[in-house]
């Protein structure tokens, strides 16, 4: 996944990683793409790990807004599998495409066949490698499918430039193109604000 994202990002780009976790992706992009990166994170243990990796990190909650970032001030804004955990994904999408010239967003696909089977035949909320939480303790409060996300983009002025279909371990799987909304575990999108 890191490599795939790296391919979307130009050398020396200014990159903002929303919910950057332990800073692995930014550290990777710094080494491989010489990016000038910045991460947002609220978990202090993870912030500590970012500092260890010499990754710039700001203690800021995405749900509290991103109004402190200026329009088009980053070449790329990355949101890795966390838009579904936000209180207002639609606001976040608008903000991300306002701040970034491009946005790279990945989502776990709730319409994946395994999820569907668990719901239909198991009668329980799906649990998978991409979505490993019980319904009551999941941070994922706004799960969606590829179709749902793409509709959100249309409705909120975001143009999809590229889409990659991945298994939960972040490997691109070309066979998923046969039925993306059914087969994909994680979808990776490159979007930008529509002019």
């Amino acid at each position: 996944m890191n490599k795939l994202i790296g391919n979307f990002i130009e050398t020396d780009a200014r990159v903002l990683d929303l919910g950057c976790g332990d800073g692995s992706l930014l550290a990777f992009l710094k080494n491989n793409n010489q990016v000038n990166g910045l991460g947002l994170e609220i978990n202090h243990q993870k912030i500590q790990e970012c500092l260890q990796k010499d990754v710039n990190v700001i203690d800021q909650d995405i749900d509290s807004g991103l109004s402190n970032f200026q329009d088009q001030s980053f070449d790329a804004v990355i949101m890795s599998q966390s838009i579904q955990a936000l209180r207002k994904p639609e606001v976040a999408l608008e903000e991300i495409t306002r701040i970034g010239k491009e946005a790279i967003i990945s989502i776990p696909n709730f319409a994946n066949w395994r999820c569907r089977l668990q719901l239909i035949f198991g009668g329980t909320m799906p649990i998978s490698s991409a979505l490993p939480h019980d319904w009551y303790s999941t941070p994922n409060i706004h799960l969606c499918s590829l179709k749902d996300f793409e509709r959100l983009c249309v409705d909120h002025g975001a143009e999809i430039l590229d889409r990659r279909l991945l298994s939960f371990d972040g490997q691109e799987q070309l066979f998923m193109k046969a039925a993306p909304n059914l087969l994909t575990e994680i979808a990776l999108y490159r979007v930008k604000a529509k002019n």
Partner: protein
Amino acid sequence: MPNDSLGRVETKSFIHKDSFALKSGRTLQGFEMVYQTYGELNEAKDNAILICHALSGNHHVAGLNAEEKKGWWDDMVGPNKAFDTNKHFIVGCNNLGGCHGTTGPNSNNPETNSAYGSSFPMVTVGDWVKSQDLLRNHLGLPYWYAVVGGSLGGMQALQWSIDYPDLVKKIIVIAAAAKLSAQNIAFNEIARQAILADPNYNSEDKLPKTGLGLARMLGHITYLSDDAMREKFGRDMKKGEVNFSYDVEFEVESYLRYQGESFSNRFDAHTYLLMTKVLDYFDPAEAHGGDLAKTLKSVTAKALLIAFSSDWRFSPERSRELANAFIEAKKDVSFLEIDSPQGHDAFLIPSETYDNAVKTFLEKNE
């Protein structure tokens, strides 16, 4: 002696003989600056850290001085502590205008051959940084690996990164702001009025201790959070009941009076006045039309900003403003808001998150 203590430390002195021009337009005919150092300078001379003191601090940052008194940041500076003297060569100095050995209002004015007193020239954070750079040179340091400080100390660290971008690699700005708010200045003004209104102010043989004590009492309230005060004192009474008088009745009154009195015995009123003005004047962005991001354009140091959740003197929001300016200027910056009930004073108190952030940030990873 605990093995994380520096033990006895000695105060050294640096004398600058040439004249020293101040931002105010006035000039000091040389000055003396006292300082302490902890840890060893390595061969490459790339492990020196300058710790800048806040309003009432001084050069005695850590260890035990001649009076067996611990330094003001002893909890965080020493072997294996957040600022690890096993790894770093740490310098603390007393700033110009101070009252603990560096040239200040109590020093002799060579022009009048008597103490400066209230005629000591106003100084600024920029003046301090310039004088600290002379100390750096005196110590034979090619640059500071880091300049750090809390509150007014953090403002000096910030000023260092702006004024001497080639001479500092990292800064840690703790519980500070890029400039004071009207509320901050208002508190300082009341503190000054308390001193200036003391009948002993500028008296030949008496000190304005009442005024200085009042100023400190006021300041102290702003260093603590509402919760911390409630926790510490609540409405506890000295004698268990009210006695309908203006004597000390509540514990908090007793505490504040004690703080004010003890402070007025160890600090100089002129220095206090001066320090509050240094705070009020601090506004590095002023030279760039108020544009802080533009001001930071020349900065090359990596910055770590730390704020504490219950600090209302310099709230986390003020640190975020500073962080945003670094971000806008595309500079290396990290920001951490630490949960703490202790208010502004939290910057003096070690905690796991705080110590780890400082330690990790100071590790060399180039």
